[in-house]
């Protein structure tokens, strides 16, 4: 596999501040790749080094096999959608979109056809004559997309493009961006601090912490098998317990505090697991409450409800279990006939070995 974008040992210092601490990254052509991480972890910095707005302090960056050191932003095969959209306020929508074509050899007619096509693609056909300040947030975002895509870049860089939109608009644009990416087949690199957005949209996600990549995987692997506690904490909701791993020949079992002993199938044992104390993650949806009249083949443990949060389609319970330090969160679908328990109710919690995610202690 040859990567379209390839970073090796990339370091970035701002003065003495170490913003990128050795980034290794390969992004394939046509991939929808996301950089996800908490505020200040260096996502924007990484995106800007790829775009050419920031130089590297160390390491190499190749795009399409060519080393990018010394290549300024205007000569790179990348285009960017800025967080503030950066629509030129003194130009009309069409002039904004046509801006990048100034140096191209197209005839006037070809240019205006290209502008029309780009505007149609983002659903802004007929808006070309509008003054750019007379646009809504979502429309500005589309103009920024059209302006970047008209140049048919190899890579489109997007820095939190949806963060300024309201929830509804954001969800709509997520779907449109995915559709657009499939349609044009351009590699998208999306920066976001919204884990849900990253999970919904990406082929692959790199989770960043303090200038480093903590884990890089497809959304499902990232969610089901986080490789560290900080990744597990950042993606979705996760309960944390402690346990002790023991190995006996080929089988690995873990003694989970408060729940009991379970034998783990090989697929759930991360490489390099050694006997000893571990941290164990449990997703809320892999546990369940055993309601009156229901039966289960799985294991059960006594618990007391300590908090109830009702979401309509779901109810989130916090339960206390003897021997478990903090309350465990359980999410339950509100199926027909299923009651919502009260705080203080005695109940049973269903679990088994498939609930357990082994994390380094």
């Amino acid at each position, binding site marked *: 596999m040859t990567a379209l974008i390839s970073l090796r040992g990339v370091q970035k210092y701002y003065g003495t501040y170490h913003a990128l601490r050795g980034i290794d990254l390969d992004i394939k052509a046509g991939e929808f790749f996301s950089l996800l991480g908490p505020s200040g972890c260096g996502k924007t910095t990484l995106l800007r080094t790829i*775009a050419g*707005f920031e130089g590297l302090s160390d390491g190499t960056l190749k795009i399409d096999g060519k080393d990018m050191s010394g290549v*300024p*932003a*205007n*000569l790179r095969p*990348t*285009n*960017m959608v*800025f*967080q*503030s959209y*950066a629509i*030129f*306020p*003194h130009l009309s929508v069409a002039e904004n979109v046509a*801006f*990048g074509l*100034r*140096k191209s050899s197209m005839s006037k007619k070809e240019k205006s056809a290209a502008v029309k096509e780009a505007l149609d693609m983002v659903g802004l056909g007929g808006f070309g004559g509008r003054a750019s*300040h007379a646009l809504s947030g979502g429309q500005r975002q589309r103009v920024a997309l059209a*302006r*970047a895509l008209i*140049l048919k870049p190899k890579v489109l860089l997007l820095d939190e493009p949806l963060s300024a939109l309201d929830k509804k608009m954001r969800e709509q644009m997520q779907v449109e961006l995915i559709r657009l990416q499939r349609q044009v087949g351009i590699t998208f690199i999306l920066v976001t601090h919204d884990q849900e957005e990253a999970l919904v949209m990406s082929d692959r996600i790199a989770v960043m912490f303090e200038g480093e990549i903590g884990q890089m995987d497809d959304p499902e692997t990232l969610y089901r098998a986080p490789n560290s506690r900080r990744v597990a904490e950042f993606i979705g909701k996760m309960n944390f317990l402690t346990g002790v791993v023991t190995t006996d020949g080929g089988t690995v079992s873990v003694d989970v505090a408060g729940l009991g002993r379970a034998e783990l199938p090989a697929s759930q044992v991360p490489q390099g697991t050694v006997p000893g104390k571990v941290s164990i993650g449990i997703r809320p949806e892999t546990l369940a409450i055993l309601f009156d009249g229901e039966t289960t083949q799985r294991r059960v443990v006594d618990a007391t409800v300590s908090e109830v949060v009702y979401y309509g389609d779901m109810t989130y319970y916090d339960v206390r279990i003897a021997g478990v330090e903090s309350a465990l969160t359980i999410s339950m679908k509100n199926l027909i006939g299923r009651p919502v328990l009260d705080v203080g109710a005695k109940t049973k919690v269903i679990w088994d070995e498939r609930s357990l995610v082994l994390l380094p202690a």
Partner: protein
Amino acid sequence: MKGSGLKIYAIAYLLFLYAPILLLPIFAFNDGTIIAFPLQGFTTKWFGELWTNKALHDAVGNSLFIAMMTAIFATLLGVCAARAGAMASFPGKKGITGFIMLPLVLPEIIVAVSLLIVLRQVLDMQLSNWTIIMAHVLICTPFSIAILNGAFQNIDPALEEAALDLGETRWSAFRLVILPLVVPGIISSMLISFTISLDEFIIAFFLTGSNPTMPVYIWGLLRFPASLPVVMALGTLLVTLSIVLLATAEYFRRRGLARAGIKDSGGFL
């Protein structure tokens, strides 16, 4: 009545400020050489004399030339300084900005005397329009920077990066994106500098060579009571011109802010 004290104060203040200026047009059209009431009747002959006075024309010519050059150079310097100030910080930025703005509060007489000494004693230069232009650029640049700072700092830095990203060079990005957005500020700065330079007296008085500027010429006229009405006529024209220029400058400053989508926050008018 509530606020009536304040109202009286405001009216008195405005009278004090503008009544003397109102006297200018009154006596400029008064048919009498003595500046005193009662008025003698209506005439435009003083304005007529303005048209035939060769020395005055030379002085006005000098002043216009100086004011024009000052406007251009002060604004050029202002653009550079404001642009540097709007970009990422560099070592000593605060100190440098402070020093650039200093002439704003420096007494003009001090500037005039020290410049005279430097030009004549140290550099041994001939006094000319250009020596005045240099001094006027010095006092106008801070005003220019103050106006242009506003214009530059209101621009989202991502706009320039977007232009670079779309294939423009640093220079063409500046020309195509930044410059159009600060044009109103540039016009405003040029008009303000022009106005300041046009009626500046102290520095011009010290640094003027054999050809006086208009304010210096007017000052010379004051020694001859008979020419006072002409001065009044000239003054009337100048006040009108100043008001028009300043109003235009303010119009452009506000339009610049509106264009960048910013709420107004002060200014000179």
